């Protein structure tokens, strides 16, 4: 009911009678399976059959249709039942064929992994993985639970190698990292470890560096980096010199990237992020430098505006250059010390270039012209 990227079949490619009969047969088989699972799991009847056999039926059905969320719910209810060993007083529940909680959780991780390879964007599969791990964790030894999360961390790395922009995979990575930070490694189970020992922020920062080196256009990686740097600096208890060094390194890195390929949107967005941290109203939780005065700010604006203008010598048809110049110009003018590095005439020229190169956003350039009083 919501398909993406599937080519349309034209009206004259109607099904043959044979194909129709085959499809009707498939429908009957599918509906029979649905009815069977729902009957066995329906909580309206007194004797719900939460058994290994019914669990296997949900596996079969979810393999055919992983979007069927109610079946995932059934599966979780079955597993919750199977996780609890039958008490001697209650002989109505059959034993779980000697399978341990770890066996069940491992099976579900394998099962959902095979589904994710086919359906990497299906919310319900990702959800079920989270649930299986969380439910397992509450019943397993901490060291085993940690092993499972570590394996999960490996897996999400694989998923991101396959599609480095997969939205679900990036969210899931942040989630798994948070779990690993929550559960300490066995060596520091004594409780002597500090938050910094458990934190993975350094490793995650290094991971974004690796991802960006592979592909500069990976905005997901740049985004994660923008969230990690403020945390990283706080955790390192970085002084102002170290903070400035971090900022300068990031800026020179992104300046090189801009010079290499000024057409890449992702790079400009990261540049904007860095520049946005210069603002006096920048929130503390996304701060890089903490002690900035207007002199510092002016120096950075001058340096960046100058650097971006230099690219114009080789590249006059890239709209991002003009857009950035006009974006940073007002900040510069707000604290400008008298020695203007550009004139209103320059700004008018940048704007007319923008209009020429980017007519789609004409309304925006009209508004910009008004707001800058050009």
């Amino acid at each position, binding site marked *: 009911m919501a398909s993406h990227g599937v*080519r349309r079949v034209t009206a004259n490619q109607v099904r043959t009678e044979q194909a129709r009969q085959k499809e009707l047969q498939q429908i009957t088989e599918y509906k029979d399976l649905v009815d069977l699972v729902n009957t066995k799991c329906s909580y309206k009847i007194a004797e719900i059959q939460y058994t290994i056999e019914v669990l296997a039926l949900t596996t079969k059905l979810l393999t055919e249709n992983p979007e069927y969320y*109610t079946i995932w719910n059934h599966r979780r209810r079955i597993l919750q039942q199977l996780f609890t060993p039958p008490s001697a007083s209650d002989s109505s529940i059959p034993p779980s064929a000697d399978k341990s909680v770890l066996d069940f959780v491992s099976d579900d991780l394998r099962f959902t992994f095979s589904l994710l390879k086919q359906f990497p964007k299906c919310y319900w599969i990702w959800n079920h993985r989270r649930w299986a791990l969380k439910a397992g964790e509450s019943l397993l030894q901490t060291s085993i639970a940690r092993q499972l999360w570590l394996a999960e961390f490996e897996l999400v790395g694989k998923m991101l190698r396959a599609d480095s922009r997969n939205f679900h995979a990036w969210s899931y990575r942040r989630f798994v990292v948070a779990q690993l930070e929550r559960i300490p490694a066995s060596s520091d189970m004594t409780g002597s470890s500090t938050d910094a020992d458990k934190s993975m922020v350094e490793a995650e920062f290094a991971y974004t560096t690796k991802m960006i080196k592979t592909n500069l256009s990976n905005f*997901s990686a740049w*985004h994660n980096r*923008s969230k990690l740097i403020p945390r990283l600096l706080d955790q390192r208890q970085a002084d102002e010199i170290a903070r400035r060094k971090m900022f300068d390194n990031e800026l020179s890195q992104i300046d090189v990237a801009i010079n290499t390929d000024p057409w890449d949107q*992702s790079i400009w967005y990261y540049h904007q992020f860095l520049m946005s941290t210069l603002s006096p109203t920048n929130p503390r939780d996304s701060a890089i430098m903490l002690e900035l005065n207007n002199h510092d700010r002016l120096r950075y604006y001058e340096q960046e505006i100058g650097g971006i203008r230099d690219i114009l010598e080789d590249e006059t048809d890239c709209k991002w250059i003009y857009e950035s110049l006009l974006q940073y110009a007002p900040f510069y003018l707000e604290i400008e010390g008298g020695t203007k590095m550009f004139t209103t005439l320059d700004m008018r020229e940048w704007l007319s270039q923008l209009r020429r190169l980017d007519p*789609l956003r004409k309304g925006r350039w009209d508004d910009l012209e008004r707001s800058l009083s050009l």
Partner: protein
Amino acid sequence: MSLVSGPGRGGITDDRLPHELRLFVDKHVCYIQSLDTRKDELEYWLTEHLRLSGLYWGLTALHLLGRPDGLPRNEVLDFVMSCMHDNGGFGAAPGHDAHMLYTISAVQILATLDAFGELEERVGGGRQKIGQYIASLQDTTTGTFAGDEWGETDTRFLYGALNALSLLGLLDLVNINQAVEHIQECANFDGGYGTSPGAESHAGQIFTCVAALSIAGRLDLVDRDKLGGWLSERQLKNGGLNGRPEKKEDVCYSWWVASSLAMIGRLHWIDAEKLTKFILNCQDPELGGFADRPGNMVDVFHTVFGIAGLSLVKYAGLVEVDPVYCMPLAVTKRALGKLK
């Protein structure tokens, strides 16, 4: 079959427009009406878990096309009520578990059909029950909302909760300030919002966060120029819109991006004419319906968001859409006005 709209409606002058600018209204109506007759296709059964939302998409598309009676009102109402659970939530179809997503669709359909009175007749205290179900899904530590008892949280559910509760006139059942604070935590430097704190900006999530802020009366928290700039960059040369930088265009983003721009008063920052052409190009001119991209398979999801996108950019003859709710503006005005 005539290409003009039903009696009493002016404006749609299809047969005088060049082919590429025509909206095939009757084809789309037929397509939507045919959706429930496709029981001999496996796809019909494989998508049962979306049925109630599919009904909301189809019904809304018909209303925007000016054919509010395109589906039999009583049958629609019967089906909606058959999805309701004792706890006040709705599943996607009878026998499917209750979930926030389908509860929102149910409320949107009831509002569109002006059927809250009939809800009370069929289920005493029904309105309150639905409100209580939605309110029970608010996470009282973070302010966000879960989709169901299993606890997955997402700004999609937060928006849905505020959408449905406002239509029901029951916003006071939840902690709005805490929900607003949560949205603030999902904000990014580019002016956009993600699924949860720390997540990358994404046009779909931006729609949910901006619309939720709009319902909460807190659009003052949005950096309109920054967000408007980011959203406007989603338009590609072919006129279509994408959801994130370096991604492909897709008709459903015509809605997520353009409605967000409309809510912050920046819709004129993209080229409406080119967007119109792109959306129209995604129609199936023979059998009706819209696809994600030209030449692809149509579905009712892209059909409603394609038509709603056209309505936003004022395609002649279409009923005006409310960018906050993706419902006809006259419907939301009636529902929200009645409750004041």
